[in-house]
């Protein structure tokens, strides 16, 4: 089949599934989810180049997720603590949860801790409970942490350096802030900031992924591939036009 015919068919498939998913669940979030799964995903998985794009994107998202979620340590000089009312908008996913036991709402007073890094750059943290939700820090001592941070205030002339453990990102375009998890005084701006917890979690996670990967490879080689080869041979024997037609859609030559 010429390449342009394939291209036209793929575009028709994408458009058709888009319309169909809209007809099924209506416009909105779930339409994109449905179309992503039924329309876009098969196209990505069937084409060899796009497969790599897909997996690259998936792993990059996973890495970003870990970078957001796992704790990091900053050495800072705390200059002020304050609270400010925030009305959550399109950035609402980047805020944690209300204080444990209080009611949820789309608008809340939130504690902030602001300070400066040794290089003179400002950093601002929010200080929110994560409660029993995600990420699983089970942080319920927001008010205590604010008091501790307040107790460690210092000026540029007489700095007191503090290690702030936090997760999350600062992004000015979305107005989001990392969430401070703990503060402790340290000796100076060069204090140790190795994130031991993060390293431990990454090692365990890598071991887990490796264990699953190895078992999947073994399962695929021993069970899946022979079964698929058997099906392929059966189809070939039938001289069925359908299998040749399906294979012509794949980038790989037929075995």
């Amino acid at each position, binding site marked *: 089949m010429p390449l342009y015919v394939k291209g036209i068919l793929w575009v028709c498939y994408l458009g058709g599934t888009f319309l169909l998913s809209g007809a099924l669940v209506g416009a909105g979030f779930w339409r994109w989810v449905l179309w992503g799964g039924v329309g876009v995903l098969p196209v990505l998985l069937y084409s060899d180049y796009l497969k790599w794009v897909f997996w690259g994107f998936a792993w990059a998202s996973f890495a970003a997720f870990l970078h957001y979620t796992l704790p990091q340590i900053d050495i800072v000089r705390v200059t002020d603590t304050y609270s400010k009312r925030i009305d959550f908008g399109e950035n609402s996913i980047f805020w944690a949860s209300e204080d444990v036991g209080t009611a949820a709402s789309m608008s809340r007073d939130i504690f902030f801790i602001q300070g400066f890094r040794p290089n003179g750059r400002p950093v601002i943290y929010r200080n929110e409970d994560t409660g029993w939700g995600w990420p699983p820090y*089970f942080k319920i*001592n927001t008010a205590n942490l604010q008091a501790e941070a307040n107790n460690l205030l210092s000026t540029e002339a007489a700095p007191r350096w503090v290690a702030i453990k936090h997760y999350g990102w600062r992004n000015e375009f979305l107005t989001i802030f990392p969430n401070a998890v703990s503060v402790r005084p340290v000796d100076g701006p060069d204090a140790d900031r190795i994130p031991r917890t993060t390293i431990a979690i990454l090692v365990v996670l890598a071991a887990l992924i490796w264990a699953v990967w190895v078992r999947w490879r073994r399962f695929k080689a021993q069970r899946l591939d022979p079964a698929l080869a058997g099906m392929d041979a059966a189809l070939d024997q039938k001289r069925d036009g359908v299998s040749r037609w399906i294979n012509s859609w794949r980038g790989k030559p037929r075995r």
Partner: protein
Amino acid sequence: MLAFARLFVMLMIVLTVVYVSLSLYSRAQRRAKLEREWDEEGLEGDKRAFVKAGLVEYDSSLRRKLILGVYIVPLGLIGFIVYALNFQ
């Protein structure tokens, strides 16, 4: 408390699925091991009774009780995190 109850119930459901699967898997492994032992050593008599006796022994073994760690380890970890993060 509602958020906590939700977390706890979800966790219990997931852990119970893991616990049941792991129990069945472990028991099947033991059964296969007993059958292999029978075949390799060329024992005489009733194979089914031999396997059954081995499984009864397994049911009261420490190894089987260790599977309870599926519940104990995550709950202990949550308890430790709550203490270490908020009350230290």
